[in-house]
């Protein structure tokens, strides 16, 4: 039945899965910070990614700025936007016990962003077409998509950057501490609002990077993003909370899973397989596949 299977094909399938999964991974890292510190089910993340993709598109068509050169501009703008979203929308709500409120604010924000984009840029799909769009690099008989490779590199660099920030700087350590136990963090003098603002800024900043990676690889329309919110959530659950690298790896596992299941079963079932695995993980190892259980003190 699978007589056309060769080693090269499998290798290509594997690489594609990894490259594709980093996209989910990027979104999942951002989510792990936001969800980790504030327990917000931030469904508007996909919409923000698309918003950033539109910004990238704008810079490209209006000012002829190459998408990869716009990383610093968009990254910074996204961070400011993230801080603004926290201060404007979530500052009051995170204090409240009821998690539904933050969930609903996120939903409201999603409606708002999606439809604002539809009014501003029309609902027609947009895409960025450059010299390197749909070009690929041949490596030993395999073809590796250039834009996706760049996406992978960007994901790796930003994961490394965020990891360094969280591990090496005092503020980063404070973010990790707050995501573990916000009450204890307050008792050592960590201001939750400051930490949350930073978590949001980085989380949305990563959305900016994901937006650039997306806009160079895919065409997009205002409603394109929701699936990313869902998949990022799954990647996060696979990787486990509280670990940046885990979130990235969760995304890569998800991507590989989808790419293999759509090859061996059929394209339509890929989603069902990934959700099924997600449910199984939640049932049998809810702390995530990659997390060593640390006993709560």
């Amino acid at each position, binding site marked *: 039945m699978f007589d056309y299977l060769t080693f090269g094909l499998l290798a*290509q399938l594997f690489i*594609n899965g990894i490259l594709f999964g980093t996209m989910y991974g990027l979104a999942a890292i951002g989510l792990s910070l936001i969800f980790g510190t504030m327990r917000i089910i931030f469904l508007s993340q996909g919409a923000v990614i698309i918003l950033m993709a539109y910004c990238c598109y704008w810079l490209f068509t209006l000012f002829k700025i190459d998408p990869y050169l716009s990383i610093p501009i968009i990254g910074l703008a996204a961070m400011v936007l993230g801080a603004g979203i926290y201060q404007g929308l979530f500052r009051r709500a995170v204090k409240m016990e009821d998690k539904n409120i933050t969930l609903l604010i996120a939903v409201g924000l999603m409606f708002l962003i999606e439809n604002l984009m539809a009014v501003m840029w029309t609902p027609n*799909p947009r895409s960025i077409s450059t010299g390197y769009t749909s070009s*690929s690099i041949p490596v030993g008989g395999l073809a590796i998509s250039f834009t996706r490779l760049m996406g992978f590199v960007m994901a790796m660099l930003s994961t490394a950057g965020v990891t360094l920030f969280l591990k090496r700087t005092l503020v980063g350590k404070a973010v990790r501490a707050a995501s573990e136990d916000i009450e204890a963090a307050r008792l050592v003098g960590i201001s939750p609002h400051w930490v949350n603002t930073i978590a949001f800024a980085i989380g949305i900043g990563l959305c900016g990077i994901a937006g650039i990676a997306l806009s160079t690889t895919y065409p997009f*329309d205002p409603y394109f993003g929701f*699936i990313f919110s869902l998949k990022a959530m799954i990647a996060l659950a696979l990787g486990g909370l509280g670990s940046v690298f885990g979130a990235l790896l969760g995304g890569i596992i998800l991507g590989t899973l989808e*790419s293999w299941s*759509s*090859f061996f079963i*059929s394209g339509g079932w890929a989603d069902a397989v990934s959700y099924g695995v997600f449910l199984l993980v939640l049932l049998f190892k809810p702390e995530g596949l990659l997390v060593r259980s640390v006993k709560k003190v």
Partner: protein
Amino acid sequence: MKSKRIFWWFGLLCSIPIICLVFSNFAMAAGKEILIGAPVHMTGPLAPDGLELKWAYEQAVADWNKKGGIFIKSANKKLPIRLVFADDESEPAKVAGAIEKLIKVDKVDLLLGTHSATMSVPAINTAEKYQMVYHCTTHWPEMFRDQKAKWASVMFFSAVGASEVPFIIWETLLKKEDRPKNVALLMEDSPDGQAFGGGFRSHAKTHGVTFAVDEPWAIGAKDYSSMILKMKAKNVDAILLYGAPTDAITLVRQIKEAKLNVKYMHGWKGTWAVEFAQALGKDANYVICDGFWSEEFPYPLCKELGKRYTDKFKKRSVSIGAFYGTAQVLFMAIERAKSYDKTAVRDALRNAEYKGTVMGDLKFDEIGLALFPSTANQWWDGKQMLFYPPVKGGYQLKLAPEWGKR
């Protein structure tokens, strides 16, 4: 105390819309105009199509009103047409609400249809409940027949008929040695994709073609490399695909990245949008798209409609004529019935022929169904060039060379 006041304010705010709804049955100036309602997608994922539909309906109304409207016997004069729209939010459950609103709040006389089969089924069901004329396009005749609607009418092509197009093209326009040997069928997991898929499979049998790859295509999937690898492994040289524009763009990009050489790529729905060509640039060349209509059709008004569309949207369309034609046929039916009474208009749309529309001559059967042929166009430098049905002295189909040799 203060909170209590807020509550009363809130109660007031809450009751205003409800009162609005109750008393919005404003008496219409009956006999002064013909009021036609149309649900369209103004928001949601299908909004791009909805906005074109809206524009085309508005054009048709403006054209008729320029002529003074339509002669109505009971008023003994020409009455102008007025259109009201309702947003169906690209959602089957909401299209029902939109039609309820058009019938009950706006009290429309007749309905023009929304777009896409997913929406048409509940739309027709709802219109049927109120015995309201519902005249639409882009709804599959096979499904329409199943619905046994008494008040709706459809003008479209059948998926079965349209899906024969590629086989006819291969047999009539290509030399024997050029005909594809390993064909891949990629059909979107949607009612439309499934309808087409069934058509392709049955025609493949009669034309002696077997599909090397037959894959359903999940809507919004982002990675097609598995599919492409499968096609590569099976030496596919022709692809028939049905999918949304974003998905089709992604697919072609990934096909190029994977260096899969296909000499004949024929897409439905997703490949005709101008965004497809914009996103792909030169890579869109050689890709074939379907169409409902072409401004190169030898029918009246086609050239002008195409020009108006290009002036407004700065692009060409292969669909706008079908939308315009839908409204045009409804107005012709009112004109023929000399009345906008719904029974009269419905009867005028059954067992009737309408000549000289932008879609050519249309013949409605006893259930209110008219078929027109589907077209095939090839992208060439940003333009969809009509090559099927062949027009004299028109564009000739080109087969795609390898990616490196373009």
